[in-house]
Protein backbone atom coordinates (compact mmCIF):
# COMPACT_ATOMS: atom_id res chain seq x y z
CA UNK A 1 0.00 0.00 0.00
CA UNK A 2 2.81 2.32 0.88
CA UNK A 3 4.39 1.74 -2.50
CA UNK A 4 1.49 3.21 -4.40
CA UNK A 5 1.47 6.36 -2.30
CA UNK A 6 5.19 6.91 -2.61
CA UNK A 7 5.54 6.39 -6.31
CA UNK A 8 2.35 6.75 -8.33
CA UNK A 9 3.70 5.49 -11.66
CA UNK A 10 0.71 6.40 -13.69
CA UNK A 11 -2.21 8.64 -13.09
CA UNK A 12 -4.62 6.49 -15.07
CA UNK A 13 -4.26 3.36 -12.93
CA UNK A 14 -6.17 3.54 -9.73
CA UNK A 15 -6.41 -0.22 -9.23
CA UNK A 16 -4.75 -1.86 -6.29
CA UNK A 17 -1.27 -3.33 -6.87
CA UNK A 18 -2.73 -6.81 -6.55
CA UNK A 19 -4.94 -6.28 -9.57
CA UNK A 20 -2.08 -4.76 -11.51
CA UNK A 21 0.26 -7.62 -10.69
CA UNK A 22 -2.42 -10.15 -11.52
CA UNK A 23 -3.14 -8.60 -14.90
CA UNK A 24 0.56 -8.39 -15.74
CA UNK A 25 1.07 -11.99 -14.65
CA UNK A 26 -1.82 -13.19 -16.78
CA UNK A 27 -0.50 -11.32 -19.79
CA UNK A 28 2.99 -12.71 -19.30
CA UNK A 29 1.63 -16.21 -18.79
CA UNK A 30 -0.23 -15.95 -22.07
CA UNK A 31 2.83 -14.74 -23.91
CA UNK A 32 4.91 -17.55 -22.41
CA UNK A 33 2.30 -20.20 -23.09
CA UNK A 34 1.37 -19.28 -26.64
CA UNK A 35 4.55 -17.70 -27.99
CA UNK A 36 7.68 -18.44 -26.03
CA UNK A 37 7.18 -22.11 -25.20
CA UNK A 38 6.24 -23.18 -28.76
CA UNK A 39 9.19 -21.21 -30.13
CA UNK A 40 11.60 -22.72 -27.64
CA UNK A 41 10.20 -26.20 -28.21
CA UNK A 42 10.88 -25.92 -31.95
CA UNK A 43 14.55 -25.29 -31.28
CA UNK A 44 14.71 -27.81 -28.40
CA UNK A 45 13.22 -30.52 -30.61
CA UNK A 46 15.58 -29.59 -33.46
CA UNK A 47 18.72 -29.82 -31.32
CA UNK A 48 17.49 -32.82 -29.33
CA UNK A 49 20.03 -35.19 -30.82
CA UNK A 50 22.94 -32.80 -31.14
CA UNK A 51 23.90 -30.11 -33.59
CA UNK A 52 25.56 -32.55 -35.99
CA UNK A 53 22.22 -34.13 -36.77
CA UNK A 54 20.68 -30.66 -36.96
CA UNK A 55 23.24 -29.58 -39.51
CA UNK A 56 22.97 -32.86 -41.41
CA UNK A 57 19.21 -32.29 -41.76
CA UNK A 58 19.80 -28.85 -43.28
CA UNK A 59 22.48 -29.82 -45.81
CA UNK A 60 20.68 -32.95 -46.96
CA UNK A 61 20.06 -32.55 -50.75
CA UNK A 62 16.26 -32.47 -50.52
CA UNK A 63 16.40 -29.88 -47.73
CA UNK A 64 18.87 -27.77 -49.70
CA UNK A 65 16.63 -27.96 -52.75
CA UNK A 66 13.68 -26.84 -50.61
CA UNK A 67 15.68 -23.91 -49.23
CA UNK A 68 16.77 -22.85 -52.71
CA UNK A 69 13.27 -23.10 -54.10
CA UNK A 70 11.92 -21.03 -51.21
CA UNK A 71 14.55 -18.34 -51.76
CA UNK A 72 13.94 -18.33 -55.50
CA UNK A 73 10.19 -17.98 -54.95
CA UNK A 74 10.66 -15.05 -52.58
CA UNK A 75 13.21 -13.52 -54.95
CA UNK A 76 10.64 -13.42 -57.74
CA UNK A 77 7.46 -12.77 -55.76
CA UNK A 78 8.67 -9.95 -53.52
CA UNK A 79 10.09 -7.61 -56.24
CA UNK A 80 6.96 -8.17 -58.33
CA UNK A 81 4.80 -7.15 -55.40
CA UNK A 82 7.07 -4.23 -54.66
CA UNK A 83 6.59 -2.76 -58.12
CA UNK A 84 2.90 -3.51 -58.17
CA UNK A 85 2.32 -2.26 -54.64
CA UNK A 86 4.00 1.09 -55.25
CA UNK A 87 2.16 1.58 -58.54
CA UNK A 88 -1.22 0.70 -57.04
CA UNK A 89 -0.72 2.79 -53.90
CA UNK A 90 0.46 5.74 -56.00
CA UNK A 91 -2.56 5.54 -58.25
CA UNK A 92 -5.01 5.10 -55.39
CA UNK A 93 -3.61 7.67 -52.97
CA UNK A 94 -2.67 10.48 -55.33
CA UNK A 95 -5.43 10.38 -57.92
CA UNK A 96 -9.19 10.16 -58.11
CA UNK A 97 -10.79 7.92 -60.68
CA UNK A 98 -13.85 5.78 -61.25
CA UNK A 99 -13.77 2.32 -59.69
CA UNK A 100 -11.17 3.29 -57.13
CA UNK A 101 -12.90 1.59 -54.22
CA UNK A 102 -13.43 -1.49 -56.38
CA UNK A 103 -9.69 -1.61 -57.03
CA UNK A 104 -8.98 -1.39 -53.30
CA UNK A 105 -11.38 -4.29 -52.65
CA UNK A 106 -9.70 -6.28 -55.39
CA UNK A 107 -6.27 -5.75 -53.85
CA UNK A 108 -7.63 -7.03 -50.55
CA UNK A 109 -9.04 -10.19 -52.11
CA UNK A 110 -6.04 -12.44 -51.32
CA UNK A 111 -6.44 -11.53 -47.64
CA UNK A 112 -10.03 -12.69 -47.56
CA UNK A 113 -9.69 -15.80 -49.74
CA UNK A 114 -8.47 -19.00 -48.10
CA UNK A 115 -5.00 -19.98 -49.40
CA UNK A 116 -6.33 -23.40 -50.44
CA UNK A 117 -8.85 -21.73 -52.71
CA UNK A 118 -6.07 -19.52 -54.07
CA UNK A 119 -4.15 -22.66 -55.02
CA UNK A 120 -7.21 -24.32 -56.55
CA UNK A 121 -7.83 -21.25 -58.71
CA UNK A 122 -4.53 -21.94 -60.45
CA UNK A 123 -5.31 -25.65 -60.79
CA UNK A 124 -8.57 -24.62 -62.42
CA UNK A 125 -6.80 -22.26 -64.82
CA UNK A 126 -3.62 -24.14 -65.65
CA UNK A 127 -4.38 -27.76 -64.68
CA UNK A 128 -4.59 -30.43 -67.38
CA UNK A 129 -8.41 -30.34 -67.11
CA UNK A 130 -8.45 -26.57 -66.62
CA UNK A 131 -9.19 -23.66 -68.97
CA UNK A 132 -5.76 -23.24 -70.49
CA UNK A 133 -4.40 -26.69 -69.61
CA UNK A 134 -4.72 -28.32 -73.04
CA UNK A 135 -3.11 -25.33 -74.79
CA UNK A 136 -0.23 -25.28 -72.32
CA UNK A 137 0.30 -29.03 -72.70
CA UNK A 138 0.40 -28.65 -76.50
CA UNK A 139 3.12 -26.04 -76.23
CA UNK A 140 4.92 -27.98 -73.52
CA UNK A 141 4.69 -25.18 -70.97
CA UNK A 142 4.59 -26.37 -67.39
CA UNK A 143 3.03 -24.02 -64.87
CA UNK A 144 1.23 -26.03 -62.27
CA UNK A 145 3.18 -28.72 -60.33
CA UNK A 146 6.32 -26.81 -61.29
CA UNK A 147 8.20 -23.72 -60.15
CA UNK A 148 6.07 -21.15 -62.08
CA UNK A 149 2.90 -22.38 -60.34
CA UNK A 150 4.52 -22.07 -56.94
CA UNK A 151 5.70 -18.54 -57.73
CA UNK A 152 2.24 -17.58 -59.04
CA UNK A 153 0.49 -18.87 -55.94
CA UNK A 154 2.98 -17.02 -53.74
CA UNK A 155 2.54 -13.78 -55.67
CA UNK A 156 -1.19 -14.13 -55.20
CA UNK A 157 -1.12 -14.58 -51.42
CA UNK A 158 1.45 -11.81 -50.88
CA UNK A 159 -0.30 -9.43 -53.29
CA UNK A 160 -1.79 -6.95 -50.80
CA UNK A 161 1.11 -6.53 -48.36
CA UNK A 162 3.03 -3.66 -49.96
CA UNK A 163 0.02 -1.83 -51.35
CA UNK A 164 -1.94 -2.13 -48.09
CA UNK A 165 1.01 -0.70 -46.18
CA UNK A 166 1.47 2.26 -48.52
CA UNK A 167 -2.08 3.39 -49.26
CA UNK A 168 -2.91 4.87 -45.81
CA UNK A 169 0.56 6.38 -45.57
CA UNK A 170 0.36 8.08 -48.96
CA UNK A 171 -3.21 9.22 -48.36
CA UNK A 172 -2.15 10.83 -45.07
CA UNK A 173 0.74 12.58 -46.74
CA UNK A 174 -1.48 14.08 -49.42
CA UNK A 175 -0.08 15.40 -52.68
CA UNK A 176 0.99 18.95 -51.71
CA UNK A 177 4.69 18.16 -51.88
CA UNK A 178 4.34 16.55 -55.31
CA UNK A 179 2.35 19.54 -56.55
CA UNK A 180 5.02 21.89 -55.27
CA UNK A 181 7.70 19.87 -57.04
CA UNK A 182 5.74 19.95 -60.28
CA UNK A 183 5.19 23.70 -60.01
CA UNK A 184 8.94 24.15 -59.48
CA UNK A 185 9.52 22.36 -62.78
CA UNK A 186 10.31 18.76 -61.83
CA UNK A 187 9.33 16.03 -64.25
CA UNK A 188 6.96 13.26 -63.13
CA UNK A 189 9.83 10.82 -62.77
CA UNK A 190 11.90 13.29 -60.76
CA UNK A 191 8.94 13.97 -58.50
CA UNK A 192 8.57 10.26 -57.84
CA UNK A 193 12.25 9.62 -57.10
CA UNK A 194 12.99 12.81 -55.15
CA UNK A 195 9.71 13.46 -53.34
CA UNK A 196 7.35 10.49 -53.18
CA UNK A 197 9.80 7.65 -52.66
CA UNK A 198 11.78 9.24 -49.80
CA UNK A 199 8.50 9.97 -48.03
CA UNK A 200 7.30 6.37 -48.17
CA UNK A 201 10.55 4.49 -47.88
CA UNK A 202 10.00 3.18 -44.33
CA UNK A 203 6.46 2.06 -45.03
CA UNK A 204 7.67 0.44 -48.21
CA UNK A 205 10.40 -1.46 -46.41
CA UNK A 206 7.91 -2.59 -43.80
CA UNK A 207 5.59 -3.93 -46.47
CA UNK A 208 8.44 -5.74 -48.20
CA UNK A 209 9.52 -7.41 -44.96
CA UNK A 210 6.01 -8.68 -44.30
CA UNK A 211 5.55 -9.84 -47.89
CA UNK A 212 8.85 -11.69 -47.74
CA UNK A 213 7.96 -13.45 -44.50
CA UNK A 214 4.67 -14.61 -45.97
CA UNK A 215 6.27 -15.63 -49.27
CA UNK A 216 8.73 -17.92 -47.53
CA UNK A 217 6.24 -19.30 -45.04
CA UNK A 218 3.20 -19.89 -47.25
CA UNK A 219 1.87 -23.43 -47.01
CA UNK A 220 -1.74 -23.82 -48.16
CA UNK A 221 -1.73 -22.33 -51.63
CA UNK A 222 1.71 -23.70 -52.47
CA UNK A 223 0.75 -27.17 -51.23
CA UNK A 224 -2.11 -27.35 -53.75
CA UNK A 225 0.01 -26.43 -56.79
CA UNK A 226 3.27 -28.10 -55.78
CA UNK A 227 2.82 -31.77 -56.64
CA UNK A 228 5.19 -32.56 -53.75
CA UNK A 229 8.07 -33.85 -55.86
CA UNK A 230 11.02 -34.32 -53.52
CA UNK A 231 13.98 -32.12 -54.29
CA UNK A 232 12.02 -30.42 -57.08
CA UNK A 233 8.84 -28.68 -56.01
CA UNK A 234 8.96 -28.73 -52.22
CA UNK A 235 9.37 -25.42 -50.41
CA UNK A 236 10.58 -25.38 -46.80
CA UNK A 237 7.08 -25.50 -45.24
CA UNK A 238 6.12 -28.45 -47.46
CA UNK A 239 9.39 -30.19 -46.69
CA UNK A 240 8.70 -29.82 -42.97
CA UNK A 241 5.34 -31.53 -43.39
CA UNK A 242 6.85 -34.43 -45.34
CA UNK A 243 9.61 -34.97 -42.80
CA UNK A 244 7.10 -34.90 -39.97
CA UNK A 245 4.96 -37.51 -41.73
CA UNK A 246 8.03 -39.71 -42.06
CA UNK A 247 8.61 -39.56 -38.29
CA UNK A 248 11.83 -37.70 -39.01
CA UNK A 249 11.16 -35.29 -36.17
CA UNK A 250 14.69 -33.91 -35.77
CA UNK A 251 14.94 -32.97 -39.44
CA UNK A 252 11.38 -31.63 -39.48
CA UNK A 253 12.08 -29.36 -36.54
CA UNK A 254 15.48 -28.38 -37.91
CA UNK A 255 13.78 -27.06 -41.04
CA UNK A 256 10.98 -25.58 -38.94
CA UNK A 257 13.58 -23.80 -36.83
CA UNK A 258 14.83 -22.07 -39.96
CA UNK A 259 11.35 -20.72 -40.57
CA UNK A 260 11.16 -19.66 -36.93
CA UNK A 261 14.51 -17.97 -37.32
CA UNK A 262 13.18 -16.17 -40.36
CA UNK A 263 10.26 -14.98 -38.25
CA UNK A 264 12.63 -13.66 -35.58
CA UNK A 265 14.79 -11.88 -38.16
CA UNK A 266 11.63 -10.41 -39.66
CA UNK A 267 10.56 -9.14 -36.25
CA UNK A 268 13.97 -7.61 -35.61
CA UNK A 269 13.99 -5.94 -39.03
CA UNK A 270 10.46 -4.70 -38.47
CA UNK A 271 11.35 -3.20 -35.09
CA UNK A 272 14.39 -1.54 -36.61
CA UNK A 273 12.32 -0.06 -39.42
CA UNK A 274 9.77 1.27 -36.96
CA UNK A 275 12.49 2.73 -34.77
CA UNK A 276 14.29 4.34 -37.71
CA UNK A 277 11.04 5.77 -39.04
CA UNK A 278 10.16 7.25 -35.66
CA UNK A 279 13.62 8.76 -35.36
CA UNK A 280 13.39 10.33 -38.76
CA UNK A 281 9.97 11.75 -37.99
CA UNK A 282 11.38 13.35 -34.84
CA UNK A 283 14.29 14.73 -36.85
CA UNK A 284 11.91 16.21 -39.41
CA UNK A 285 9.87 17.87 -36.70
CA UNK A 286 12.97 19.38 -35.14
CA UNK A 287 14.13 20.73 -38.46
CA UNK A 288 10.70 22.18 -39.11
CA UNK A 289 10.77 23.97 -35.76
CA UNK A 290 14.22 25.38 -36.40
Amino acid sequence: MAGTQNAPRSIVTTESPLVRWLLTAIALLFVALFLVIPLVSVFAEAFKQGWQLYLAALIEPDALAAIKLTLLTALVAVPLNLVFGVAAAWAIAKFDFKGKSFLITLIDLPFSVSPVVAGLIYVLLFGAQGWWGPWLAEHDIKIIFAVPGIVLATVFVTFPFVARELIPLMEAQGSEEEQAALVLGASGWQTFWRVTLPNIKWGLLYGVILANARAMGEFGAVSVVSGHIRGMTNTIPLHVEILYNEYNFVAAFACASMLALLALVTLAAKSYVEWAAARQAAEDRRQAVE
Partner: protein
Amino acid sequence: MTRRASLLAVAFALLSGHALADTTLLNVSYDVMRDFYKDYNPVFAKYYEAKFKDKLTVQQSHGGSSKQARSVIDGLEADVVTMNQSTDIDAIVEKGKQINSGWEKRLPDNASPFSSLQVLIVRKGNPKGIKDWNDLVKPGVQVVVPNPKTSGNGRYTYLAAWGYALKQPGGNDAKARSFVSALFANVPVLDSGGRAATTTFMQRNIGDVLVTFENEAEMIAREFGRGGFEVVYPSVSIDADLPVAVVDKVVDKKGTRKAAEEYLKYLWSPEGQQVAAQNYLRPRDKTVAAKFAKQFPVVKLFTVDEFGGWTKAQNQHFDDGGIYDQIAAANAKN
Protein backbone atom coordinates in the same frame (compact mmCIF):
# COMPACT_ATOMS: atom_id res chain seq x y z
CA MET B 1 13.40 -13.95 -66.80
CA THR B 2 13.20 -17.45 -68.25
CA ARG B 3 16.88 -17.38 -69.01
CA ARG B 4 17.69 -16.27 -65.52
CA ALA B 5 15.40 -18.91 -64.10
CA SER B 6 17.02 -21.65 -66.13
CA LEU B 7 20.48 -20.42 -65.18
CA LEU B 8 19.40 -20.50 -61.57
CA ALA B 9 17.98 -23.96 -62.02
CA VAL B 10 21.25 -25.20 -63.46
CA ALA B 11 23.20 -23.52 -60.68
CA PHE B 12 20.93 -25.14 -58.12
CA ALA B 13 21.27 -28.55 -59.71
CA LEU B 14 25.05 -28.24 -59.60
CA LEU B 15 25.08 -26.87 -56.07
CA SER B 16 22.86 -29.56 -54.70
CA GLY B 17 25.12 -32.20 -56.14
CA HIS B 18 22.50 -33.81 -58.33
CA ALA B 19 24.21 -35.14 -61.41
CA LEU B 20 22.22 -34.26 -64.49
CA ALA B 21 20.66 -37.59 -65.31
CA ASP B 22 19.89 -38.80 -68.80
CA THR B 23 16.51 -40.18 -67.86
CA THR B 24 14.27 -38.98 -65.08
CA LEU B 25 11.14 -40.76 -63.95
CA LEU B 26 8.52 -39.35 -61.62
CA ASN B 27 6.78 -41.89 -59.44
CA VAL B 28 3.59 -40.53 -57.90
CA SER B 29 2.72 -42.73 -54.99
CA TYR B 30 0.67 -42.88 -51.81
CA ASP B 31 1.60 -42.03 -48.28
CA VAL B 32 3.07 -45.10 -46.61
CA MET B 33 4.97 -46.38 -49.68
CA ARG B 34 7.85 -43.94 -49.28
CA ASP B 35 9.98 -46.40 -47.32
CA PHE B 36 9.69 -49.10 -49.94
CA TYR B 37 10.58 -46.86 -52.88
CA LYS B 38 13.43 -45.28 -50.95
CA ASP B 39 14.97 -48.77 -50.94
CA TYR B 40 13.77 -49.90 -54.36
CA ASN B 41 14.82 -46.87 -56.46
CA PRO B 42 18.61 -47.26 -55.99
CA VAL B 43 18.38 -51.02 -56.64
CA PHE B 44 16.51 -50.42 -59.87
CA ALA B 45 18.74 -47.52 -60.97
CA LYS B 46 21.79 -49.77 -60.63
CA TYR B 47 20.17 -52.53 -62.68
CA TYR B 48 18.95 -50.09 -65.32
CA GLU B 49 22.31 -48.37 -65.73
CA ALA B 50 24.11 -51.68 -66.08
CA LYS B 51 21.65 -52.97 -68.65
CA PHE B 52 20.93 -49.90 -70.77
CA LYS B 53 24.06 -47.78 -70.16
CA ASP B 54 21.79 -44.89 -69.29
CA LYS B 55 21.80 -42.88 -66.10
CA LEU B 56 18.47 -42.85 -64.33
CA THR B 57 16.99 -40.73 -61.56
CA VAL B 58 13.66 -41.48 -59.95
CA GLN B 59 11.78 -38.63 -58.32
CA GLN B 60 9.16 -39.35 -55.71
CA SER B 61 5.92 -37.64 -54.78
CA HIS B 62 3.84 -38.92 -51.85
CA GLY B 63 0.44 -38.09 -50.40
CA GLY B 64 -2.99 -39.60 -49.85
CA SER B 65 -3.70 -42.09 -52.64
CA SER B 66 -6.83 -40.42 -54.00
CA LYS B 67 -5.35 -36.94 -53.67
CA GLN B 68 -2.29 -38.04 -55.64
CA ALA B 69 -4.52 -39.47 -58.37
CA ARG B 70 -6.31 -36.12 -58.52
CA SER B 71 -2.97 -34.32 -59.01
CA VAL B 72 -2.10 -36.62 -61.92
CA ILE B 73 -5.49 -35.91 -63.46
CA ASP B 74 -4.79 -32.18 -63.05
CA GLY B 75 -1.49 -32.49 -64.87
CA LEU B 76 1.20 -33.67 -62.46
CA GLU B 77 3.48 -35.36 -64.99
CA ALA B 78 3.93 -38.77 -63.42
CA ASP B 79 5.62 -41.43 -65.52
CA VAL B 80 4.29 -44.14 -63.23
CA VAL B 81 1.63 -44.20 -60.53
CA THR B 82 1.81 -46.66 -57.63
CA MET B 83 -1.42 -46.61 -55.64
CA ASN B 84 -3.16 -48.63 -52.96
CA GLN B 85 -6.42 -49.14 -54.79
CA SER B 86 -7.29 -49.75 -58.41
CA THR B 87 -10.13 -47.19 -58.32
CA ASP B 88 -7.52 -44.44 -58.00
CA ILE B 89 -5.90 -45.57 -61.25
CA ASP B 90 -9.32 -46.06 -62.83
CA ALA B 91 -10.10 -42.44 -61.96
CA ILE B 92 -7.06 -41.34 -63.97
CA VAL B 93 -8.27 -43.52 -66.88
CA GLU B 94 -11.76 -42.02 -66.78
CA LYS B 95 -11.33 -38.40 -65.74
CA GLY B 96 -7.88 -37.56 -67.02
CA LYS B 97 -7.53 -40.07 -69.86
CA GLN B 98 -3.76 -40.12 -69.23
CA ILE B 99 -3.75 -43.91 -68.78
CA ASN B 100 -5.24 -46.25 -71.37
CA SER B 101 -7.89 -48.65 -70.17
CA GLY B 102 -6.82 -52.25 -69.69
CA TRP B 103 -3.78 -51.20 -67.63
CA GLU B 104 -4.36 -53.99 -65.11
CA LYS B 105 -3.88 -56.60 -67.84
CA ARG B 106 -0.51 -55.27 -68.99
CA LEU B 107 1.36 -56.60 -65.97
CA PRO B 108 1.04 -59.88 -64.02
CA ASP B 109 -1.15 -60.32 -60.91
CA ASN B 110 -3.60 -57.62 -62.02
CA ALA B 111 -0.68 -55.16 -62.09
CA SER B 112 -0.17 -55.54 -58.37
CA PRO B 113 3.43 -56.62 -57.64
CA PHE B 114 2.85 -57.30 -53.95
CA SER B 115 0.05 -57.11 -51.45
CA SER B 116 -0.65 -56.34 -47.86
CA LEU B 117 -3.53 -57.06 -45.51
CA GLN B 118 -5.31 -55.41 -42.63
CA VAL B 119 -3.95 -56.38 -39.22
CA LEU B 120 -4.88 -55.34 -35.69
CA ILE B 121 -2.31 -53.46 -33.65
CA VAL B 122 -2.88 -53.49 -29.89
CA ARG B 123 -1.10 -52.06 -26.86
CA LYS B 124 1.66 -54.05 -25.15
CA GLY B 125 0.34 -57.16 -23.39
CA ASN B 126 -2.99 -56.85 -25.24
CA PRO B 127 -4.86 -55.59 -22.13
CA LYS B 128 -8.27 -55.80 -23.82
CA GLY B 129 -7.63 -59.34 -25.04
CA ILE B 130 -8.26 -58.59 -28.70
CA LYS B 131 -7.95 -61.62 -30.97
CA ASP B 132 -10.26 -61.12 -33.90
CA TRP B 133 -12.65 -58.74 -35.62
CA ASN B 134 -15.53 -59.57 -33.24
CA ASP B 135 -13.51 -58.15 -30.31
CA LEU B 136 -13.60 -54.74 -31.98
CA VAL B 137 -17.35 -54.32 -31.61
CA LYS B 138 -17.37 -54.98 -27.87
CA PRO B 139 -18.47 -52.03 -25.76
CA GLY B 140 -15.59 -50.06 -24.27
CA VAL B 141 -13.08 -50.96 -26.99
CA GLN B 142 -11.78 -47.95 -28.87
CA VAL B 143 -10.76 -48.59 -32.48
CA VAL B 144 -8.57 -46.22 -34.51
CA VAL B 145 -9.27 -46.39 -38.26
CA PRO B 146 -8.69 -43.81 -41.00
CA ASN B 147 -11.78 -42.43 -42.71
CA PRO B 148 -13.06 -44.78 -45.45
CA LYS B 149 -14.28 -41.74 -47.39
CA THR B 150 -10.77 -40.36 -47.86
CA SER B 151 -8.43 -43.28 -47.47
CA GLY B 152 -7.92 -46.66 -49.14
CA ASN B 153 -6.61 -47.94 -45.84
CA GLY B 154 -9.94 -47.18 -44.16
CA ARG B 155 -11.88 -48.75 -47.02
CA TYR B 156 -9.92 -51.99 -46.71
CA THR B 157 -10.68 -52.10 -42.98
CA TYR B 158 -14.37 -51.52 -43.60
CA LEU B 159 -14.51 -54.28 -46.23
CA ALA B 160 -12.41 -56.68 -44.14
CA ALA B 161 -14.83 -56.32 -41.21
CA TRP B 162 -17.81 -56.70 -43.53
CA GLY B 163 -16.33 -59.83 -45.12
CA TYR B 164 -15.55 -61.33 -41.73
CA ALA B 165 -19.16 -60.89 -40.57
CA LEU B 166 -20.42 -62.32 -43.84
CA LYS B 167 -18.30 -65.45 -43.38
CA GLN B 168 -19.57 -66.20 -39.88
CA PRO B 169 -22.17 -68.99 -39.56
CA GLY B 170 -25.52 -67.57 -40.60
CA GLY B 171 -23.87 -64.44 -41.92
CA ASN B 172 -25.73 -62.22 -44.36
CA ASP B 173 -25.63 -58.64 -45.59
CA ALA B 174 -27.92 -57.31 -42.88
CA LYS B 175 -25.80 -58.86 -40.12
CA ALA B 176 -22.59 -57.64 -41.76
CA ARG B 177 -23.99 -54.15 -41.91
CA SER B 178 -24.87 -54.02 -38.23
CA PHE B 179 -21.45 -55.52 -37.40
CA VAL B 180 -19.59 -52.82 -39.34
CA SER B 181 -21.88 -50.19 -37.88
CA ALA B 182 -21.04 -51.36 -34.33
CA LEU B 183 -17.33 -51.29 -35.20
CA PHE B 184 -17.42 -47.72 -36.45
CA ALA B 185 -19.46 -46.69 -33.39
CA ASN B 186 -16.31 -47.61 -31.42
CA VAL B 187 -14.08 -45.26 -33.45
CA PRO B 188 -13.23 -42.14 -31.43
CA VAL B 189 -11.29 -40.27 -34.16
CA LEU B 190 -11.52 -40.68 -37.93
CA ASP B 191 -8.24 -39.49 -39.42
CA SER B 192 -8.03 -38.69 -43.11
CA GLY B 193 -5.17 -41.08 -43.89
CA GLY B 194 -3.27 -44.11 -42.66
CA ARG B 195 -0.25 -42.18 -41.45
CA ALA B 196 -2.37 -39.78 -39.43
CA ALA B 197 -4.19 -42.72 -37.81
CA THR B 198 -0.85 -44.21 -36.78
CA THR B 199 0.15 -40.91 -35.18
CA THR B 200 -3.16 -40.78 -33.31
CA PHE B 201 -2.64 -44.29 -31.94
CA MET B 202 1.08 -44.24 -31.21
CA GLN B 203 1.80 -40.61 -30.37
CA ARG B 204 -1.41 -39.25 -28.99
CA ASN B 205 -2.00 -42.60 -27.30
CA ILE B 206 -5.67 -42.76 -28.27
CA GLY B 207 -7.54 -46.06 -28.67
CA ASP B 208 -7.06 -49.73 -27.79
CA VAL B 209 -6.53 -51.05 -31.29
CA LEU B 210 -5.32 -49.61 -34.59
CA VAL B 211 -6.39 -51.30 -37.81
CA THR B 212 -3.92 -50.72 -40.63
CA PHE B 213 -1.79 -52.39 -43.30
CA GLU B 214 0.67 -55.08 -42.23
CA ASN B 215 3.61 -53.13 -43.68
CA GLU B 216 2.62 -50.03 -41.67
CA ALA B 217 2.93 -52.18 -38.54
CA GLU B 218 6.57 -52.80 -39.44
CA MET B 219 7.05 -49.05 -39.94
CA ILE B 220 5.72 -48.44 -36.44
CA ALA B 221 8.17 -51.00 -35.05
CA ARG B 222 11.07 -49.23 -36.74
CA GLU B 223 10.01 -45.76 -35.59
CA PHE B 224 8.63 -46.37 -32.13
CA GLY B 225 10.45 -49.55 -31.14
CA ARG B 226 9.05 -53.06 -30.93
CA GLY B 227 8.31 -52.92 -27.22
CA GLY B 228 5.24 -50.71 -27.26
CA PHE B 229 2.70 -52.76 -29.17
CA GLU B 230 1.73 -56.18 -30.52
CA VAL B 231 0.44 -57.23 -33.92
CA VAL B 232 -2.65 -59.45 -33.90
CA TYR B 233 -3.52 -61.36 -37.06
CA PRO B 234 -7.29 -61.80 -37.36
CA SER B 235 -8.76 -65.14 -38.45
CA VAL B 236 -9.60 -63.71 -41.85
CA SER B 237 -8.59 -60.50 -43.60
CA ILE B 238 -8.75 -58.74 -46.94
CA ASP B 239 -6.04 -59.00 -49.57
CA ALA B 240 -5.00 -55.42 -50.28
CA ASP B 241 -3.70 -55.23 -53.83
CA LEU B 242 -1.31 -52.37 -54.43
CA PRO B 243 -1.60 -51.67 -58.16
CA VAL B 244 0.90 -49.88 -60.40
CA ALA B 245 0.57 -48.42 -63.90
CA VAL B 246 2.51 -46.53 -66.54
CA VAL B 247 0.97 -43.15 -67.38
CA ASP B 248 0.74 -43.55 -71.16
CA LYS B 249 0.18 -39.94 -72.10
CA VAL B 250 3.18 -38.70 -70.12
CA VAL B 251 5.71 -41.37 -71.11
CA ASP B 252 4.81 -41.01 -74.80
CA LYS B 253 5.30 -37.27 -74.59
CA LYS B 254 8.53 -37.46 -72.62
CA GLY B 255 9.86 -40.50 -74.46
CA THR B 256 10.34 -42.43 -71.24
CA ARG B 257 8.08 -45.40 -71.97
CA LYS B 258 10.89 -47.93 -72.03
CA ALA B 259 12.36 -46.82 -68.70
CA ALA B 260 8.94 -46.55 -67.05
CA GLU B 261 7.91 -50.04 -68.17
CA GLU B 262 11.21 -51.48 -67.02
CA TYR B 263 10.78 -49.72 -63.68
CA LEU B 264 7.44 -51.42 -63.06
CA LYS B 265 8.42 -54.80 -64.55
CA TYR B 266 11.45 -54.97 -62.28
CA LEU B 267 9.11 -54.89 -59.27
CA TRP B 268 8.35 -58.54 -60.10
CA SER B 269 12.04 -59.52 -60.32
CA PRO B 270 13.54 -61.51 -57.43
CA GLU B 271 15.48 -58.39 -56.38
CA GLY B 272 12.41 -56.18 -56.39
CA GLN B 273 10.37 -58.81 -54.56
CA GLN B 274 13.14 -59.11 -51.98
CA VAL B 275 13.05 -55.37 -51.27
CA ALA B 276 9.27 -55.62 -50.94
CA ALA B 277 9.51 -58.47 -48.45
CA GLN B 278 12.11 -56.56 -46.46
CA ASN B 279 9.55 -53.76 -46.19
CA TYR B 280 6.91 -56.26 -45.06
CA LEU B 281 4.97 -56.22 -48.30
CA ARG B 282 3.86 -59.75 -49.21
CA PRO B 283 5.79 -60.81 -52.33
CA ARG B 284 4.23 -62.66 -55.31
CA ASP B 285 7.41 -64.55 -56.11
CA LYS B 286 7.19 -68.05 -54.58
CA THR B 287 10.91 -68.37 -53.79
CA VAL B 288 11.10 -64.99 -52.09
CA ALA B 289 7.86 -65.69 -50.25
CA ALA B 290 9.28 -68.99 -48.98
CA LYS B 291 12.42 -67.25 -47.80
CA PHE B 292 10.45 -64.70 -45.80
CA ALA B 293 7.67 -67.10 -44.76
CA LYS B 294 8.44 -66.58 -41.07
CA GLN B 295 7.51 -62.92 -41.08
CA PHE B 296 4.25 -63.45 -42.96
CA PRO B 297 1.87 -65.64 -40.91
CA VAL B 298 -0.67 -67.44 -43.03
CA VAL B 299 -4.03 -65.69 -42.86
CA LYS B 300 -7.16 -66.68 -44.70
CA LEU B 301 -7.73 -63.93 -47.24
CA PHE B 302 -10.53 -62.81 -49.47
CA THR B 303 -10.33 -60.16 -52.17
CA VAL B 304 -12.46 -57.21 -53.18
CA ASP B 305 -14.00 -59.52 -55.81
CA GLU B 306 -16.14 -60.75 -52.90
CA PHE B 307 -17.88 -57.36 -53.25
CA GLY B 308 -18.03 -57.52 -57.05
CA GLY B 309 -14.78 -55.60 -57.58
CA TRP B 310 -13.70 -52.12 -56.56
CA THR B 311 -16.04 -50.20 -58.83
CA LYS B 312 -19.09 -51.91 -57.40
CA ALA B 313 -17.83 -51.78 -53.81
CA GLN B 314 -17.08 -48.09 -54.18
CA ASN B 315 -20.46 -47.43 -55.67
CA GLN B 316 -22.42 -49.40 -53.09
CA HIS B 317 -20.49 -48.60 -49.92
CA PHE B 318 -18.40 -45.44 -50.18
CA ASP B 319 -19.99 -43.05 -52.68
CA ASP B 320 -22.08 -40.20 -51.32
CA GLY B 321 -25.25 -41.61 -49.80
CA GLY B 322 -23.77 -45.12 -49.81
CA ILE B 323 -23.93 -47.64 -46.97
CA TYR B 324 -20.97 -46.10 -45.15
CA ASP B 325 -22.64 -42.67 -45.15
CA GLN B 326 -25.87 -44.20 -43.84
CA ILE B 327 -23.97 -46.00 -41.06
CA ALA B 328 -22.07 -42.86 -40.10
CA ALA B 329 -25.26 -40.80 -40.00
CA ALA B 330 -27.04 -43.42 -37.84
CA ASN B 331 -24.07 -43.65 -35.47
CA ALA B 332 -23.91 -39.87 -35.15
CA LYS B 333 -27.55 -39.83 -34.00
CA ASN B 334 -27.02 -42.33 -31.18
